[in-house]
């Protein structure tokens, strides 16, 4: 048994448990068909979004799902405009930097709170935990005033700074560092590693599944974030994808095939990532949901 086997949280294993096979009967077939129909209905909005983005304007109002003459014209048109390209880059940069910052700081703080004994530990822990109770909506007005004062409005830093660390991530990582045996840390200390090296080379590799789950949550959260980017940006150049799409929808007015193309551009990357890492992401969601 390897180390990762020992510390992998048991809640994540629930999907690996094999259930005994039951004989197929009529009831099972009906159950399957009903659930399948429901599942197909669930993905219909996404399917229609993609289908409409591939239709010519005159075909948009037909209810057929498969376009009669598929075209990528809408994509060419929307991307040639240049703005979606820019918003895409903005969102990508912001979500990436925020994710890296969260992985670094949340795990550092989580590790410290979990493995060190020092005066002030409980206060820091309770203080960070209590930030989970404060809704973003309450902070946007002070953040806006702060950004105005320091000239952060309409900049990457302005969009990013509120999310660089989160109480949720810290708490999640602390929970997972509990499963790293203290003996490992003690052994590394005897080997002469300093505390920073122990955290980075001994503890961090052992919580990789948790880091991956956190990365998915933070990235997705920032990719789709709307309220704060809407408030803090005011030039088209600085918009993120959701803010840009919101304005674009109004501007395109009734050109639904173009709006659907914009919506598809903002959604397809996360869908592709999901389809590739499906099993892994669902496991991460369960871990974060139950532990966080």
């Amino acid at each position: 048994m390897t180390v990762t086997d020992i510390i992998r949280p048991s809640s994540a294993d629930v999907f690996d448990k094999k259930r005994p096979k039951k004989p197929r009967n009529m009831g099972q077939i009906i159950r399957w068909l009903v659930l399948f129909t429901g599942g197909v209905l669930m993905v219909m909005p996404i399917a229609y979004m993609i289908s409409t983005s591939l239709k010519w304007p005159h075909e948009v109002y037909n209810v057929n799902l498969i376009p009669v003459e598929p075209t990528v014209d809408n994509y060419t048109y929307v991307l040639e405009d240049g703005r979606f390209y820019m918003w895409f880059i903005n969102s990508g940069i912001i979500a990436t930097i925020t994710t890296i910052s969260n992985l670094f700081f949340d795990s550092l703080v989580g590790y410290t709170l979990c493995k060190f004994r020092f005066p002030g530990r409980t206060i820091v822990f309770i203080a960070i935990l209590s930030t989970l109770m404060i809704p973003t909506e309450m902070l946007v007005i002070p953040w806006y005033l702060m950004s105005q004062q320091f000239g952060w409005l309409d900049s990457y830093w302005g969009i990013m700074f509120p999310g660089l660390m989160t109480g949720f991530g810290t708490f999640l990582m602390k929970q997972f560092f509990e499963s790293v045996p203290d003996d490992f840390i003690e052994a590394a200390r005897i080997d002469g590693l300093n505390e920073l090296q122990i955290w980075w080379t001994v503890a961090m590799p052992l919580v990789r599944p948790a880091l991956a789950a956190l990365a998915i949550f933070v990235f997705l959260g920032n990719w789709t974030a709307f309220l704060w980017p809407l408030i803090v940006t005011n030039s088209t150049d600085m918009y993120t994808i959701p803010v840009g799409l919101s304005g674009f929808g109004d501007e395109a007015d009734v050109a639904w095939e173009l709006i659907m193309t914009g919506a598809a551009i903002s959604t397809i990357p996360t869908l592709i990532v999901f389809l590739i890492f499906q099993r892994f992401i669902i496991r991460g969601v369960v871990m974060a949901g139950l532990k966080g």
Partner: protein
Amino acid sequence: MRLYRNLRIKQKQIVWAWAFLAVPVLFYVVIRFYPTGNAIIISFQDWNLLGARTWTGLDNYITLWNDPVFWKVFKNTFAYLLIGTPVSLVLSFIIAYHLDKLRFLHGFLRLLYFLPFMTSAVAMAWVWRWFYQAVPIGLFNNILASFGIAQIEFLNSTTNSLPAVLAPAIWAGLGFQVIIFMAGIRAIPTSYYEAARIDGVGWWTILTQITIPLLRPTIVFIVVFSSIGFLRIFDLVFNMTTNNPGGPLNATKPLVLMIYDTAFNGFNMGYAAAQTVVLFTILLVVSLLQLFLLRSK
């Protein structure tokens, strides 16, 4: 350096711990706690962002209490919560319960239900907004028309618009809840079911006497998680009604949209801050209720 070397192991640990925590603690103080206090202070002031900040005591709260729009918004916010939470809870449980009993293409079915969770609310708001348009544009009305059924006014109606905005919110969150429920169901030890089978009890008894009681922590988690989500609904409402934010006669306006409007369209910062304090209080009560429910067994 010599000073550090002379410290005992325990003291060294304290130095390391605070070295690790220095930047994060500064961050939490400046970006979380100071703004929280600031929001509460602003809520007792009158300020339009340009002029002077003047203390007005409880004026903002009194204005809020007497504001008919606030009560409409308050009612809407709780309508999202009180319809959205039970509907999504029951739907996701039914789906998870049955999905758990299937093996054939299990992963594929799960994928179908989970996919909407990976979308962005803004993009989906526009998709659903298109669905809701009148004939010949909107998908729903086109389908109704092809069956010869009368059209339904979705977003332009004072009665239908709130459920119409709520539907995609439920839809998008359903997959997450199904996954959490399935994990909860699978965490129940099979020995309980085996014992029940030996006793020969029916599926209804198993469901109500074993599955649901043992799922209590999962149910509490999902209820609180989705309640907070519905109380904070904004992206969908804003984008489905950009031409008329908050719908006809504020029919869909939730608290967060009112806050946004007051602060960033009306620049009435004090009044908006008072509304955020109300939102904070509501969310706090919901969270404390969760702690209470989890403790009492």
